[in-house]
């Protein structure tokens, strides 16, 4: 059954997932082309100085990338289920309703994490080439909440898209949008260090939010 669920979800998200991952890798490539360019024109020591003491964040372009991926994959995965209330087909499969939903959700989360991991690995690898370990560690701490913001957005998109009533969708979107901005505040490099564990827990708590929308759908809210 896992195989069938994965197959269906893959058919829905594959092009979005591949497209996002490619876009992410190109984005990271662009960041380091620019770093290389700036190294050449202002010398590495000046670039490092600006990074360490003037607040220059070479990784700033990454900020909204995970969010874009979450939006693409979340909508690609859940929107088709709501057209003509097609989610009824999913709930009618010979599985517990919450189980099949969480199987779909696990697939989506793992897909998104896989894309993030690949993008992050490329980012981390290039960072190690151009910067000292201490600077790379700071960058990692800074980009971590951005990736968490992506995951959180994915969970909120699932909650919003599966919600059967439009006014609640708008309400959840507003609250969710506000919530995600907590992860994306401007901060000095590594400034989010103390907050990251709390943000991680908040993200984990939101991971099952879609069950509430699915429950409302099955109750017959319209």
């Amino acid at each position, binding site marked *: 059954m896992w195989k069938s669920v994965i197959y269906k979800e893959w058919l829905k998200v594959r092009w979005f997932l591949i497209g996002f991952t490619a876009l992410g890798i190109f984005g990271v490539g662009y960041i380091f082309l620019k770093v290389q360019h700036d190294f050449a024109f202002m010398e590495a020591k000046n670039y490092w100085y600006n990074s360490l003491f003037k607040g220059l964040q070479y990784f700033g372009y990454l900020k909204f990338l995970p969010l874009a991926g979450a939006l693409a994959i979340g909508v690609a995965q859940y929107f088709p289920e709501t057209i003509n209330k097609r989610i*009824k087909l999913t709930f009618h499969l*010979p599985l517990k309703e919450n189980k099949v939903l969480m199987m779909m959700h696990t697939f989506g989360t793992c897909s998104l994490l896989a894309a993030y991991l690949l993008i992050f690995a490329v980012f981390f690898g290039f960072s190690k080439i151009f910067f000292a370990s201490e600077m790379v560690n700071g960058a990692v701490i800074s980009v971590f909440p951005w990736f968490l913001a992506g995951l959180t957005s994915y969970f909120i998109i699932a909650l919003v898209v599966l919600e059967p009533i439009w006014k609640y969708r708008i309400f959840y979107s507003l609250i969710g949008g506000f919530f995600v901005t907590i992860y994306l505040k401007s901060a000095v490099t590594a400034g989010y260090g103390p907050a990251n564990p709390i943000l991680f827990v908040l993200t984990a708590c939101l991971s099952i939010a879609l069950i509430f929308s699915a429950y409302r759908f099955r109750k017959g809210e319209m």
Partner: protein
Amino acid sequence: MSNVIECNNLTHYYGKKMVYENLNIHVREGSILGLLGKNGAGKTTTINILNGFLQPRSGECLIYGENSQHLSPATKARIGFLIEGHIQYSFMNIHQVEKFYSGFYPNWKPAPYWELMSKLKVAPNQKISTMSCGQRSQVALGLILAQDPDLLILDDFSMGLDPGYRRLFIDYLREYAKSESKTIFTTSHIIQDMERLIDDVLIMDYNRVLAQCPVNEFMSTFKQFLFEAEKDLSDLKKEKFVVNLEKVKNKIELYTYESEDFVKNFLDEKGIAYKNFTQVKMGLEDAFIGLTGKY
């Protein structure tokens, strides 16, 4: 014979609008029951409650003895469900959708699916979203046949189908249900289709059940009499034996479960002059309109 579906004292409201109160339905094992009703009478509401997509205000529906709000996976595997409009995963093609569903049902029988698909003139990679309504109906039906469920719940299977596809759908379905002793609970807004398909009929009007019995029994006991009378007979509607009465000029259509002799005796006793008294042979659609009224 045991009941596959039993709805007891089902009551539902949308806000303050009552759909029905204390509705009781039962579907015998191996029978084909057609739920008929005007738009808004509660057909889709009933289907949604049966499939666990709507929680009734009170009462319960049992399917194979389990509450429809909490069906076990094993029971769900015994139920084939056709959503109104033959909805399927439209981003898949016919091969992908067959591959997807086959993973859920150990008794999956692909032969009837592919037999139906061979009748469709679709490209192997054509997405379901680009198919006609008729083609989609065959995909949905084929998937249900391949699932080989014991109970089929079909919500308005004739919606959007041309006469050819409707006939194909019905003939396949009836043949399958009778040869394999399947139980079917179905709705359709095209009542001629039901006549070819169903064994039992359940006719609902707003808030109540008007008839629930074998369709042959209904058609033999429910009658339409046509006669001409000059007198105003609107008071006749109040008589217990009169189910419905329609008047066009001096022509009276009287619907009742009573016999011709009973009606004639009644008219004679009341001193109502009439002429050209005849019993009209009705189809299921005529009987449905006779029972529920034209509007």
